[in-house]
């Protein structure tokens, strides 16, 4: 997404001694400010932004800046010149930047920042220049140069944002909405203790600056620390613009309007991928992947890639269809288009029809008044008739065409069409669901309904603002930055500085940000209790089946497994409920396959067949490697499989596996492995051990006997095959 020019940013931080003081149980203003800066720099570093960042500190013990002379511009330090942010900067913010014992005028600091931006950007191209000032406004300030500063900021186009430890109530300054209204309602955690005279004066100066810079939006660029930690507000200011897509909107073949479209909403994803590296050398080059193709016969005969061709399934048929033919015969798009197919009433397009992963905003082409008028006529006509356009949209020649809806969107500042993809017939799954209103069993009583009614009222996230008319929203997901990014950056930074430590816990503020607002939480307690009392809800226990399996289970001394006194010494005793609840295991890994398997099969919704297939794959992997330590791992897996199969009454699953395994012993040269099996007496599960089995103990005994007479090979158990098939063949 790195489009357009880069941005030059100065982070200007007050480190004067007042910044270090804080009420007990609270972080100092300096710590809070550093946190925000860290978040900001993290994003810049990990998103590999090309923006350059400088750091200016004021209130430092020493002085280091170009303007310093005599008693002018003292205690202001240019900590870092304008350059790409990197790990050193992160480290600096974390460890090097310490509170000073002096104070300095923040207006002087701004002048130093402006001077730095002027000098260090000469000869280079920057799309924007920007200063972010973090201060508690406690140091003396002289506003005699204010006019000059403001004029200079305006002239040079340098933008400015303030970050303060307290929210600034902007209402009494006239104009603008309360920038901090949200955080007050939402958390109310920052104590609005009385400001000092000095701070009040500082606030006045800040207001003056921001209001003069931008009468409309200026005051909204003053943030409290708390708020910006949650909202990461500074990013909006330096965000870049998405690419424009020029095209013509056509209605029939004779009417076209020149347009520009932009992606306006789309899921922002991480740009950087994880690469696989060797665990020992940590080098990527040491890991190589090899793909082989083999026939589906008993020997798995390998074939060369060049001897393979491409084909497609057409129902039961597989049709060879070369890439070239496919390319030649496939559907072709002529080129980009945005063509109206017709118009529909807007009520015919329902929200849940929306497909695709993006929303486009469509405008008239730039600097073309004729196009703008024609486009405006269309937008307003659609709006007034309450209809939408159904459009064929193709991004370019290589892309598949879409059918979508374009509906009018009219704002004070602009008007546009919004385009969203709609489904094709093939995408729909018109399932039928049982009626809820015609089912007497689930009709709620009047009491139940009224309990739900008051629950909904108590959990209302919208409230009317004092003077009426305007509504406030307590919880706007679209204002919350994606927590995944912040978590990733936090972990990356941590691992960069502490490679051998485990991941840090998730930051509390991140979790709080995702929670129900406090007000609502308290308000809904009573109604929730009522709902709980009125609706009989019961967890359906799945334990039943397990119990019966336990009852049937009989002690199997050969395996040394006894359910009545679980063995503590091996892995089994350790795994337990904690891991089950933690949910850390998602598939049967290669490190502790047996343990993973035990955890997975006990999960709710676990599919024994699937999980055991994963285990079998591991076992196959081990056996392919040949070697006693792998064999032992394999044996442990098979043991675990056997035990769980008995407990969970999945006897057939295990027995089939073992049959298949035995059949492979010869082809794969696994005789030595089989010997261990015989020694350890791991055989088929007999009907004495579990009810589901039809194998007698003699048969089980015979099964382990050296193989000589039975020469028939069993079909390999790939997922296509079925257990029943296998049985039939035996």
């Amino acid at each position, binding site marked *: 997404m790195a489009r357009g020019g880069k941005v030059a940013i100065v982070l200007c931080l007050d480190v004067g001694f007042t910044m270090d003081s804080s009420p007990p149980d609270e972080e100092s203003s300096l710590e809070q400010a550093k946190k925000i800066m860290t978040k900001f720099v993290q994003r810049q570093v990990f998103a590999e932004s090309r923006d350059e960042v400088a750091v200016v500190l004021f209130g430092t013990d020493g002085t280091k800046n170009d303007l310093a002379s005599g008693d002018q511009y003292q205690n202001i330090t240019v900590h870092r010149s304008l350059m790409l942010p990197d790990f050193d900067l992160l480290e600096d913010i974390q460890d090097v930047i310490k509170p000073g014992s002096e104070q300095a005028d923040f207006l002087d600091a701004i002048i130093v920042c402006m001077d730095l931006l002027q000098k260090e950007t000469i000869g280079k191209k920057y799309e924007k220049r920007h200063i972010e000032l973090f201060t508690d406004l406690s140091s003396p300030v002289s506003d005699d140069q204010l006019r000059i500063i403001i004029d200079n900021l305006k002239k040079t186009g340098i933008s400015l944002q303030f970050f303060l430890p307290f929210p600034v109530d902007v209402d009494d300054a006239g104009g603008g909405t309360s920038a901090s209204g949200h955080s007050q309602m939402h958390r109310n955690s920052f104590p609005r203790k009385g400001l000092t005279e000095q701070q009040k004066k500082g606030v006045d100066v800040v207001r003056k600056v921001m209001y003069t810079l931008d009468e409309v939006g200026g005051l909204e660029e003053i943030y409290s620390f708390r708020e910006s930690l949650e909202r990461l507000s500074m990013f909006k200011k330096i965000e870049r*613009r998405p*690419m424009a897509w*020029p095209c*013509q909107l056509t*209605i*029939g073949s*004779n*009417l076209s309007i020149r347009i520009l479209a*932009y*992606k306006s*909403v*789309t899921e922002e*994803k991480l740009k950087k991928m994880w690469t696989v590296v*060797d*665990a020992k050398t*940590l080098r990527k080059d040491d*890991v190589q992947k*090899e793909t082989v*193709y*083999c*026939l*589906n016969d008993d020997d798995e005969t390998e074939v060369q890639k060049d001897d*393979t*061709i491409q*084909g497609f*399934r057409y*129902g039961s048929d597989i*049709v060879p269809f070369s890439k070239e033919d496919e390319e030649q015969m*496939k559907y072709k798009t002529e080129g980009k288009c945005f063509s*109206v*197919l017709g118009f529909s009433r807007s009520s015919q397009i329902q929200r849940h029809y*929306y*497909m695709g*992963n993006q929303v486009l905003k469509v405008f008239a082409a730039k600097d*073309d008044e004729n196009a703008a008028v024609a486009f405006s006529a269309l937008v307003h006509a659609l709006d007034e008739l309450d209809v939408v356009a159904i459009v064929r949209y193709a991004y370019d020649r290589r892309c598949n065409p879409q059918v979508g809806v374009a509906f009018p*969107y009219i704002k004070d500042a602009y008007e546009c069409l919004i385009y969203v993809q*709609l489904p*094709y017939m*093939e*995408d729909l799954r018109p*399932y039928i*669901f*049982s*009626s*809820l209103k015609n089912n007497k069993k689930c009709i709620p009583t009047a009491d139940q309904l009224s309990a739900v009614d008051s629950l909904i009222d108590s959990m*209302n996230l919208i409230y009317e603002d004092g003077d009426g008319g305007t509504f406030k929203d307590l*919880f706007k997901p*679209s204002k919350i930055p*994606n927590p995944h990014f912040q*978590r*990733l950056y936090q972990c990356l930074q941590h*691992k960069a500085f502490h490679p051998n430590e485990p991941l840090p816990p*998730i930051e509390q503020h991140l979790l709080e940000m*995702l929670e129900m*607002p406090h007000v*609502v939480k308290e308000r809904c307690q009573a109604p929730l209790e009522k709902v709980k009392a009125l609706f009989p809800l019961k967890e*359906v226990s799945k334990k039943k089946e397990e119990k019966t399996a336990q009852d049937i289970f009989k002690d199997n001394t050969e395996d040394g497994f006894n359910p009545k006194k679980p063995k503590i010494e091996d892995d089994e005793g350790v795994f337990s409920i904690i891991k089950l609840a933690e949910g*850390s295991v998602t598939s049967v890994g290669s490190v502790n396959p047996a343990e993973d398997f035990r955890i997975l099969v006990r999960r709710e919704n676990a599919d024994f067949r699937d999980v055991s*297939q994963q285990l079998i794959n591991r076992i196959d992997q081990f056996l392919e*490697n040949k070697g006693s330590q792998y064999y032992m791992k394999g044996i442990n897996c098979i043991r675990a499989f056997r035990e769980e199969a008995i407990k969970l009454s999945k006897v057939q699953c295990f027995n089939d596996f073992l049959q298949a395994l035995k059949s492979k012993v010869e082809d794969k040269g696994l005789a030595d492995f089989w010997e261990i099996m015989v020694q350890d007496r791991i055989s088929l599960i007999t009907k004495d051990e579990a009810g589901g089995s039809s194998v007698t103990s003699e048969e089980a005994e015979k099964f382990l006997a050296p193989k000589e007479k039975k020469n028939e090979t069993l079909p390999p158990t790939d997922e296509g095959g079925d257990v029943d098939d296998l049985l039939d063949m035996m």
Partner: protein
Amino acid sequence: MSEWVSYYRSEGPEEDEEGEQQEEGPEAVASYSFSGRDSLIFLVDASKAMFECEGDDVTPFDMTIQCIRNVYTSKIISSDRDLLSVVFYGTEKNKNSADFKHIYVLQELDNPGAKRVLELDKYRGDEGRVLFSKTFGHNADYSLGEALWACSNLFSDVRVKLSHKRIMLFTNEDDPHANDSAKARLARTRAGDLRDTGIILDLMHLKKPGGFDISLFYRDIINIAEDEDLGIQPQESEKLEHLMRKVRAKETKKRTLVRLNLYLNKDLSLSVGVYSLAHKAYKPYPVKLYRETNEPVKTKTRMFNGKTGSLLLPSDTKRAQTYGNRQIVLEKEETEELKRFDSLGLFLIGFKPLSMLKQHHHIRPSQFIYPEESIISGSTTLFNALLIKCLEKEVMALCRYTPRRNVPPRFVALVPQEEEVDEQKVQIAPPGFHVIFLPYADDKRNIDFTEKVPADPEQVDKMKEIIKKLRFKYRTDSFENPVLQQHFRNLEALALDMMEPEQAEDLTMPKAEEMNRRLGNLVEEFKQLVYPPDYNPDGKAAKRKQAADGQAEKRPKVEISKDELRRHVQTGTLGKLTVPVLKDACRLYGLRGGGKKQELMDALTEYFSEH
């Protein structure tokens, strides 16, 4: 440019790795390859009445065959593992494993394929009717009970495990055994047997002169799936469109993506099933075949150490990202762990008026939830109460949603939907909540909007006239995906050795002629109102386009010196260079870099670390 293209790349089946990781949405979890196959038998009445009709209408039989054919072709596209079968009853000839009279199994339970479609085509239209009488004949002396028996034999003869068994019975005779109570009783008994073995029997009743009366006979025969009970009986289908809608709704087994809890707070929850009612259908992945025999080959991928050649298990590897010159290494498990915030579930945050849902806040296709009794019993009643009240108060529920473990949460709006049936009493909107995914702040982009130049009322009114001429009723199933359709027609042609594939009609193309005809002079009038006489909206852009093309051809080579490159590699600032520059550099040194920036950078870094 890069953004747009990257989006489209990740749309097709040739998704890159990143795409797969991201796209491996809830769907992947619900992969049901291990749970057995779905099977569906079309049991078709072939007695004379099915071939009769008033006037020029299509016969009920024709409609049925047409409908079955549509199911076949759509199954080939959407779920070719499902097994289908066609059985006629009321024929003169018979063919079935138990040698019942007047029952003819045309196609055993098997995957749908091109040949089967062709076979069905033979019996369509007037010629088809003649051929049918000649091949199979008609005889009204059938027993429906035996027909059902034959069907259940078909199910049990299949060698693979079946997860879902369904029979669709097409007939226009509402009382087949009016004069033979023994046969009627047998049919009821057989129907009962089917019910006991979990086979679903749907009645697709067709038009009968005088109306089709279910209560006469079929009420005791049909066996509705427990989870599809509408509490009412649909009406008979007169038109293919109606029949198709009924059949389509039932032809695929409904499956949950996931079952999870909806938490009202931490100790009060109900359980729901999550469904996807619209899911992008992709062109299927190609399979690799052995050139000599055209048999499919298996693909095995192994990781090994390039230096020692020893096999690497996943545990022998870690995951890394490099920023500047610093490599950050995590265990594979850690890369999963850092995505974990919540356990899986929907966590209620609160309620908002439906009007607060922004129309343009869309990032993914929606999902659908419906109560699930298998985890928490009593869920349905609470769900129903929530649904009723949300509909009544016109509010939506805001939730935090974690569909799987190790997936970061997303906020969703639960939008209530009331159950709706159409005039044929077929459900067109199921009761439940749509799950609408909401964007985070990062997902919204600031846009440089074009300054508006408002149109005057006269211009707007002219446009309104244009719009009124081009109105139509949008339906979600109006448009077929031309890319998929063409692909499958190509395959069909190859499979059946046809000379030329049938050209799919591209419904996404504007019907320009028809539009121009309808609009008449309106377009000219509108243009006169908004465009000056010398203005040409196409010309300008066309010229620009040409310029752009020319530019692309002789794009100035962006040269960068070797020293400069080396410096970038050493300081880790390669990322500052643009993709074309990196590409050129790679070409210069003969490196294979792939198309992605990271790959190009890696290739160059590697090159300079060795040279």
